[in-house]
């Protein structure tokens, strides 16, 4: 038996309390919905696969000393040693890796004369071991042959004739067509390259650049001037951490004329590159939890006061024939009404907040079900919070009615 109208008119007599709790619930709904939405967006971002084996792989860098450091020889020597190391499944020199947030990007053009490129792409410069070391899957065409690998220096302008690209990039360049054998330009002033292989998926190093994140091209070249090289290694399953230490030590031993540094697992790179997103998720999670707790406690506090304040009234209602259940339901219904007021305002606020985020932060539109779900949650929260005080109210003895103040 919900006596909504009398509850409503009684509430209207104490507008301030109604406005305060309503406002609190409204703000809570707006913040909780938008925070949850941001959390889910970040989670979706973090859940995108990189296309490579992340559990067994790691990278390590080497910087030689001096202007006369022979990078080419050093790489050859290092690779020979590393490939013979038990516990290493494969190793390659590579300029960048997915999730590292640093690398080389270029525009791809399909036509020599076009003014601006068709699509951007990340460039991975590596040898014939690169894709195997990454654990990327070739789904069409073939891998590089050892004889196709060359060195790339500042002097290089042309790009090798045969390149491998991610399926997403191929689909963007030639939608619905078989990309193998198609030609394209990285540098329109040079000869075009053709696609010789397609990897299922290979994320660009920059996970937060939505435009380019799935678009990558693998080039059969190893950077061979300067003094820096990065190796990508895949350890035998379960041996990664042990191999990281060994590889660092062996490289340092092999050539003391350099600094071996930054041995990092791809998992660590993933954690680092998404650190800000994870932090945001945690902070928002804490905000949501604190907000729900504060709101629930506020409802408990307020309802307790009302119960105390209305002890006599409750006794009278009991004397007039209200059962305990009726009193309990009265308070639950009252809370439901108050919460509903707040939720109406909160719904507007939630969409307003989302609109503000869309305008200022290029966030997506919040799916419709967040607000109803938030409403149900807050209704339940309100009912649970008010249950304690309401039970206390239902235990008020009807004899309260005849007690003088």
């Amino acid at each position: 038996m919900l006596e909504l109208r009398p509850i409503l008119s009684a509430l209207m007599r104490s507008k301030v309390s109604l406005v305060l709790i309503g406002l609190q619930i409204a703000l809570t709904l707006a913040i909780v919905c938008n925070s949850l939405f941001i959390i889910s967006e970040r989670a979706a971002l973090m859940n995108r696969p990189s296309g490579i084996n992340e559990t067994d792989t790691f990278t390590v860098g080497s910087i030689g000393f001096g202007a006369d450091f022979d990078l080419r020889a050093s790489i050859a020597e290092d690779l020979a040693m590393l490939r013979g190391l038990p516990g290493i499944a494969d190793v390659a020199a590579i300029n960048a890796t997915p999730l590292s947030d640093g690398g080389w990007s270029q525009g791809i053009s399909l036509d020599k004369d076009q003014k601006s490129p068709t699509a951007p792409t990340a460039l991975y410069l590596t040898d014939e071991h690169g894709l195997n070391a990454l654990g990327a899957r070739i789904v069409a065409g073939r891998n590089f042959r050892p004889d196709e690998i060359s060195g790339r220096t500042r002097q290089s302008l042309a790009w090798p004739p045969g390149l491998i690209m991610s399926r997403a990039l191929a689909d963007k360049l030639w939608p619905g067509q078989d990309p193998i054998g198609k030609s394209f330009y990285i540098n329109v002033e040079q000869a075009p390259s053709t696609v010789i292989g397609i990897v299922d998926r290979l994320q660009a190093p920059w996970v937060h650049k939505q435009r380019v994140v799935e678009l990558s091209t693998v080039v059969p070249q190893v950077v061979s001037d300067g003094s820096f090289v990065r190796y990508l290694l895949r350890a035998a399953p379960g041996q990664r951490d042990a191999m990281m230490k060994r590889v660092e030590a062996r490289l340092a031993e092999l050539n003391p004329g350099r600094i071996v540094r930054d041995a990092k697992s791809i998992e660590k790179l993933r954690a680092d590159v998404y650190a800000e997103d994870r932090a945001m998720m945690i902070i928002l999670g804490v905000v949501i939890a604190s907000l729900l707790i504060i709101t629930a406690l506020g409802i408990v506090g307020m309802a307790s006061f009302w119960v105390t304040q209305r002890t006599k009234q409750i006794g009278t209602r009991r004397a007039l024939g209200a059962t305990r259940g009726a009193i309990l339901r009265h308070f639950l219904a009252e809370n439901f009404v108050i919460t509903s007021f707040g939720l109406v305002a909160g719904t507007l606020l939630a969409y307003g907040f989302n609109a503000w985020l869309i305008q200022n932060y290029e966030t997506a539109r919040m799916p419709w079900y967040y607000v109803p779900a938030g409403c149900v949650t807050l209704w339940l929260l309100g009912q649970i919070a008010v249950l304690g005080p309401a039970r206390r109210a239902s235990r008020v003895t009807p004899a309260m009615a005849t007690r003088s103040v």
Partner: protein
Amino acid sequence: MLKMNHLSKVYRTHLIETHALRDFSIHVRDGEFVAVTGPSGSGKTTFLNIAGLLEQFSGGEYFLDGVDVRGMNDSARSRLRNEKIGFIFQGFNLIPDLNLFDNVDVPLRYRGFNAAERKRRIEDALARVGLSARTRHYPSELSGGQQQRVAIARALAGSPKILLADEPTGNLDTQMARGVMQLLEELHAEGATILMVTHDPELAARAQRNVHVIDGQVVDIHAEPRMRGLGVVAAQAAHG
């Protein structure tokens, strides 16, 4: 209508037992107007609370309109209270946040009448106490006498078997008290059974029968026709 036999009520704390009522017997018949009098602390209020099913008793028997209320659970007692008893409290006990209509509506809601039935009863009851014109007012906008009239309307609206009045004029000045008392007398004349608790002998004198309670026991029951009261009723009836 209301029958108590050898009723007792003991309040226990871990230190002492207080016998609020001892071997208390009373019989109120249909249509009677009984005043229960006694000094404060005599057990009047305890008696009223038990009669009104607001409190449990420790021993003895109590029949309300033929129903044995011993051992009834809380919900059943609430229902019985709602159907058979109309309360009139010393402090009126109107709900300040509700207007008169909604105040009178309270017991009817618990009874589960439909909307039309409730509306009819509320309007009739308020008309009966002369407050038809003020249904949308709130208690704080009324005088004490008017508030008590609303409380009486609330008590009447559910057509109870018996009206229980607890010092109904205790919070009112003489003139307002007279008006309320007159209303009770009229209701009695129309056939209502009324049980009134008061410490005011003058008020008690206007009832049909007085029951005097001292130390939780009935000490004296004397029934005497109230000529004056009847006279008033007769006069009213003549007018009506």
